[in-house]
């Protein structure tokens, strides 16, 4: 039995009498600024995050442009260092970490769960304002303080007062601290919501996999982010008051900082990828019109990734002076964390097999994810092996690896999810043709940008270097060319999505035929989501749904015949 309640109308009333939805019910700036509606907060997050992505992307293009030539091309070395610091800090803290949970999760989670809102709506709004505050603080202070430490802020360089202005890293770290609390409160909210606000019949194993992934992500957010908080606090005290914890000149230990930093920052990458994997589970199933294969395995693998991700932070420190004993231990554990990820990939592929695949734009992103995450994940194994990591650490191999997983993985899934839920959020459909074209540009551009970087890295090209030997020039130029193509793709996405906002076809309640609860309410949803609590069924059973051309979307089959659908 699907989760679709046949008693509720699934088609859209005529445009002349569009009922009030969360966008139109109250109007004006103030109603948005003090809203506690999770949908509006999700939209505000989405706008802020995409703005941050634009900013981070501009710095990426600047970095790549500088690397067109072996020596100085457009900026000095110091400025170049600031560019990649900004690019990294913005992309990690302002885009990838919050993106899917805060922008998509905030909007979708309560509706998919069958609830009226998150457990703590005002805390949700606070999370958003902390995000904005932290973002402004971090970006402004990196620019004003000429921070060039890289987004990892390693001491002793980060606490050296001679090269930075306006207190150097202190205001940036304050921004990061504030952002950390935004993340913690979001995770806290999600956990309590999933625990306490499930409707009758929604047991743990009736939850859609996107919610399982958000749950696992929230666990990481609550457990790991406080350690980031204490880390930046310690670094601030070290810089401001010269406490002597990390500074070897005062008897401190700089490697201790790296332990602290990576204890958060490794689980942070699972904060980035788990929700992405949750999106992909939804997309693969819906666009194959087939029940997800291995639901329990995928659900448990999300929790496994969350837990195992805490055991491997030392693999960022193999060549930093960490002891050999602990280094070997971390290498072993790093291999274990790849297993649950592989479980998911195999289950997705098994879902595709025998399915009725439709290559709509969200599905293209999902398939692209599997390919690129596969490459990114597999190259992580090279880095997890000690003998090869000694050679590859701090080279472009690492850069390519994490861009494949973070960008080719998490960002692609964000775009896929954005295109999937766009009709639900905005009530409009975008142009499928432009969507597919933009995807092709992004996909090709991405691979042309980053695949050569694997080659460069294994040949010894170091990362964060402003100039390089001429032998790497052609690969760098190819990479930069790819980045421009990718950039054009993103501009196209922005273009047709904005166009869809104003001129897109009105969306039906269920354009893709999803069986999860959010497709049961109108597009866009009313403010209270559901008038009466919906009844939960199997979120991947599509047998009751059929496409109705009159509506332009899927409706529950009203005939009594047993559906031979798919």
């Amino acid at each position, binding site marked *: 039995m699907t989760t679709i309640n046949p008693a509720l109308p699934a088609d859209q009333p005529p445009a002349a009498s569009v009922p009030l939805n969360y966008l139109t019910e109250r109007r004006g700036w103030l109603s948005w600024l003090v809203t506690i509606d999770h949908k509006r907060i999700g939209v505000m997050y989405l706008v802020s995050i995409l703005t941050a992505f634009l900013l981070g992307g501009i710095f990426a293009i600047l970095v790549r442009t500088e690397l067109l030539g072996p020596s100085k091309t457009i900026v000095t070395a110091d400025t170049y260092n600031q560019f990649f610091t900004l690019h990294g800090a913005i992309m990690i803290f302002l885009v990838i970490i919050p993106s899917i949970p805060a922008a998509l999760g905030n909007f979708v989670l309560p509706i998919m769960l069958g609830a009226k809102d998150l457990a*703590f709506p005002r805390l949700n709004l606070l999370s958003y304002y902390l995000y904005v505050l932290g973002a402004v603080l971090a970006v402004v202070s990196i620019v004003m303080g000429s921070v060039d430490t890289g987004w990892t802020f390693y001491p002793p360089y980060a606490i050296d007062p001679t090269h930075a202005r306006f207190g150097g890293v202190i205001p940036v770290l304050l921004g990061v601290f504030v952002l950390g609390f935004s993340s913690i409160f979001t995770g806290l909210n999600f956990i309590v919501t999933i625990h306490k606000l499930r409707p009758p019949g929604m047991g743990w194993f009736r939850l859609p996999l996107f919610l399982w992934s958000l749950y696992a992500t929230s666990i990481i957010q609550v457990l790991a982010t406080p350690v980031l908080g*204490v880390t930046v606090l310690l670094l601030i005290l070290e810089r401001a008051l010269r406490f002597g*914890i990390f500074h070897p000149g005062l*008897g401190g230990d700089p490697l201790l900082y790296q332990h602290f930093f990576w204890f958060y920052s490794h689980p942070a990458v699972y904060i980035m990828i788990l929700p992405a994997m949750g999106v992909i589970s939804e997309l693969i199933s819906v666009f194959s019109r087939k029940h997800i294969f291995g639901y329990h395995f995928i659900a448990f693998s999300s929790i496994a990734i969350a837990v195992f991700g805490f055991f491997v932070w030392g693999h960022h420190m193999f060549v930093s002076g960490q002891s050999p004993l602990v280094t070997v231990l971390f290498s072993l554990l790093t291999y274990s964390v790849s297993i649950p990820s592989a479980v998911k990939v195999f289950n997705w592929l098994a879902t595709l097999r025998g399915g009725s695949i439709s290559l709509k734009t969200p599905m293209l992103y999902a398939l692209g994810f599997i390919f690129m995450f596969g490459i990114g994940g597999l190259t992580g194994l090279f880095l997890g092996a000690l003998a090869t990591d000694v050679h590859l650490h701090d080279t472009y191999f690492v850069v390519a690896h994490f861009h494949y997983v973070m960008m080719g993985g998490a960002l692609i899934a964000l775009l896929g999810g954005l295109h999937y839920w766009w009709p639900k959020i905005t009530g409009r459909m975008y142009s499928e043709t432009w969507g597919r074209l933009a995807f092709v540009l992004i996909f090709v551009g991405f691979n042309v940008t980053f695949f050569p970087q694997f080659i460069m890295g294994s040949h010894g090209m170091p990362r964060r270097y402003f100039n390089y030997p001429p032998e790497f020039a052609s690969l760098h130029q190819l990479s930069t060319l790819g980045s421009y193509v990718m950039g054009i793709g993103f501009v196209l996405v922005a273009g047709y999505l904005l166009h869809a906002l104003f001129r897109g076809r009105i969306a039906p309640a269920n354009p893709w035929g999803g069986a999860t609860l959010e497709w049961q309410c109108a597009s866009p949803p009313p403010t209270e989501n559901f008038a009466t609590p919906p009844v939960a069924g199997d979120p991947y059973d599509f047998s009751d749904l059929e496409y109705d051309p009159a509506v332009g979307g899927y409706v529950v089959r009203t005939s009594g015949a047993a559906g031979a659908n798919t």
Partner: protein
Amino acid sequence: MSSSASSASTTAHPPGTHLAHHFQTPAQQFEAAVQGMWLFLATEILLFGGLFCIYAVFRANNPEVFEYAHRYLSKSLGAINTVVLLCSSFTIAAGVRCAQLGRSRQSATLLGLTLLCGLVFLGIKYVEYQHKWKEGLLWGHHYRPEHEASTSLHAPPEAGTADTPTTASPLADPDAPLATAPAPTPTDPDAPSATFAPPALAPPGLRGATAPLPELTGAQRVHNVQTFFGVYFLLTGLHALHVLVGLGLIVWVALRTLGGAFSPLYFTPVAMVALYWHLVDLIWIYLFPLLYLIH
């Protein structure tokens, strides 16, 4: 973890229950709040966990520093602070109980007593910090002790008395024996754990072989004593900050209690503030023996 909701109507909540529109019953809402607060406490535990990690690393690797420097702390003041915080935990737990039973005046009184205990704690902390400041017992560059650490039951015989400032630097005579635990001896260069041999000449930036030795202030028989005070002020300072925040929250909740905001159906803020205050007490329960009672 299924919702405890009955099929109660979601439209009309009983007045005065502060029941939000997305919850079905007050019990469900209260349990959600308790869960949320415990998750927040978990983040605080992890935050202090990081600080305890700093403590553990510095103490395990330089035990002589901690053994020597902790004698500068007053065990009796630390013990009084422990007792004060434990009593404050009791008073606030009793205060929550009164709020649960609708006894607002008693609840407010107990919150006031908790506030008093908290102020006593901060007062004693101020006395301790002031003493450290006067004696030059601070972190990093600021470590300039006026006196040696006071003798105690476990002091080695060569420890100086409280009013004898050290003038002789151990570096004046590199062969002088160190006061407390023996200095870490260089490991055998042929042993597997020694990763490199010390350079024959001091690297540039450190004093040359014939440069005059800088005058060291205070007793430097144990190296890097300033790291103890870095750890001490880090731990107790952040804890004191949390106490201060807690006191502010207690004042807020006490005022609301006096204003009649709470009832047996809604006393969530009191319960939440109490949980936070208990955490502050919990952290001090560990800080006290770890910092004050090292031997």
